């Protein structure tokens, strides 16, 4: 077990910059999730830790070793791949045993016992004689996990391990992963584009875009205290409402002139107000200064998602599932100033005061 440290890592292919001068400290035993849209550099970052890509600049440290010049086999990390990367010509048993055999890290006689222990952890014991192609997607994923946990590596690297599973299985496997990581207590770097996976699994999340980590923090911090428009917009479903407007005498005013909420910020000609769908309250028309028209009301079963016309802009808001709305109905809205975020429109940076 070890910490992982990236020092000013850059990866370029020709003119394309995949990872841009990124530094990152991952604590020993931490579960760190790299979250971001496809092409943001999260997988490249992980592959540089594994040694499957060479950084153009910067240093990769695992524990107290600088590993830039070490081959993947010498870095002592275990990796779970998006398409599992199972060896199709080997049985499940041989797949799991391969790292032990090739490293000679365990005496030969102990290999069956270790393989069974790992397989038992992921409930694969009855499939040991099968070939990967005779298994379902979820079972294959378990084989990949078992192959990673059969030895005790310095760190686990997981590259979108759940993205090929169907929605239902993904939820089950997510819980199993969470349980497993709690049991094993090994430093883990986990790459995903799924924010729910990130929120549920992570000790800390690094939200990446364009080759840089835009915010690094606990799931709570990322969700409740976004550092910029990108993070605010990327996290949450439906994504955060970003309302264009201005700040005038401690009040956020929309482009259409409606005074939405108080803000401690000083006057600004242009500003963006972020507010999550669940933090907007629908109230009786006339009881606040804000009114909107119902553009669409969608009952998801769990709640009602409203799309509202607020002046020139549309916003979404989540309400109790027992409330009924009709299209074009006019309603009042209340914003809670403690749950709104103010951003600079050009740089996207958060305005804090």
């Amino acid at each position: 077990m070890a910490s992982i440290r990236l020092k000013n890592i850059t990866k370029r292919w020709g003119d394309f910059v995949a990872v841009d001068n990124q530094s990152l400290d991952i604590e020993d035993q931490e579960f760190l999730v790299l979250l971001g849209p496809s092409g943001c550099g999260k997988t490249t970052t992980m592959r540089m830790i594994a040694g499957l890509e060479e950084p153009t600049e910067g240093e990769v440290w695992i524990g107290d070793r600088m590993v830039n010049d070490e081959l993947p086999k010498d870095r002592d990390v275990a990796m779970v791949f998006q398409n599992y990367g199972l060896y199709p010509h080997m049985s499940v048993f041989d797949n799991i045993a391969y790292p032990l055999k090739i490293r000679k890290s365990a005496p030969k006689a102990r290999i069956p016992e270790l393989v069974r222990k790992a397989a038992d952890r992921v409930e694969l014991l009855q499939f040991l004689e099968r070939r990967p192609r005779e298994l379902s997607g979820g079972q294959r994923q378990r084989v990949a996990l078992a192959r990673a946990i059969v030895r005790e590596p310095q760190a686990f690297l997981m590259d979108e391990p759940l993205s090929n599973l169907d929605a239902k299985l993904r939820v089950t496997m997510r819980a199993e992963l969470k349980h497993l990581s709690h049991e094993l207590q090994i430093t883990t770097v986990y790459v995903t584009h799924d924010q729910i996976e990130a929120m549920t699994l992570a000790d800390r999340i690094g939200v990446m875009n364009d080759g840089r980590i835009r915010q690094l923090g606990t799931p709570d911090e990322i969700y409740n205290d976004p550092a910029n428009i990108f993070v605010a917009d990327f996290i949450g479903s439906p994504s955060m409402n970003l309302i264009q407007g201005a700040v005038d005498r401690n009040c956020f005013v929309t482009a259409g002139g409606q005074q939405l909420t108080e803000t401690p910020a000083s006057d600004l000609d242009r500003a963006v107000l972020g507010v999550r769908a669940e933090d907007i309250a629908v109230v009786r028309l006339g009881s606040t200064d804000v009114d909107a028209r119902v553009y669409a009301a969608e009952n998801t079963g769990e709640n009602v998602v409203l799309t509202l016309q607020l002046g020139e802009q549309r916003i979404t808001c989540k309400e109790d599932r027992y409330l009924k709305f009709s299209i074009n109905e006019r309603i009042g809205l209340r914003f809670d100033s403690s749950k709104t975020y103010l951003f600079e429109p050009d740089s996207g940076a958060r305005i804090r005061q």
Partner: protein
Amino acid sequence: MRDNTLKYLLVMPAVVIVFATAIWPLIQSFRYSLFQGRLTRPGFPQGYIGFENYTWAVSQEPAFWNSVIVTGVYTLLTVALTVLLSLGLALLLVPGGRFRMSIQTILILPFAMSPALIGVSFRFMFNPEFGLFDAFFGLLIPPLADISWLSDPILAFAVCVMADVWGWIPFLTLVLIGGLAAVPSETIEAAQVDGAGGWQVFRDITLPQLAPVLAVVIILKSIFSLKTFDQVYMLTNGGPGTATQTLSHYVYFNGLKYGQLGYAASVAWLMVIPMIFLTYAYAKLVFRKAQQ
């Protein structure tokens, strides 16, 4: 007209053509192999002698066994060399950069040449007076300058093998590049992370996944090597003596040159025996893959 009748009618021309050009000649050649079958004498195919041609070839003809050995050694050497060299080349070219496509195009050129042409050009290159190799070796290793390659039994055989390997490497390389490209890179990366070094990855991961393609390639090349004729005919014409006389060449000599059609047909049918095994194995591999 009923659908069924029309169906058979439509297939009929193909059946007739296959029968006339493949099945009928097969039957005829088998029939001739049971007769004396001398083209040079009246009354062809003369008297029925049963399997005497076959027993004669196997028991009374050292030249037949010479050809069997020549063909066997030739097949073993050409298959082994071509497959090994092609695999090496394919491994070099697979991860390659942007020049790969143009190199591949150049690579295919030797395969685009007819085997007879390869034979002729190699005969020129090994000519002891004005040949390319002669000049080349003469410059590098003077004692080798005056060797007359095609007059020495072992050297002539080596030249035949070399010409064949040269002609076949490109095609096999391309097939193997295709096979290697189909090996999922994740399995290779997984093995690297699991702790395997370069050679171990190749031995444990790449080679087993390449095995089906490799088997097809080996069988295909064996079939082609076993029936080699044109190149040998142009390059050495079986000589010196019978040092490079493959079975096909032996059949040709006896059948068309000496007019012993019955005997030649029986030797051709003896050649069918290894071919059947190889073709069966090939078909099984290819069709099993298609079924999956």
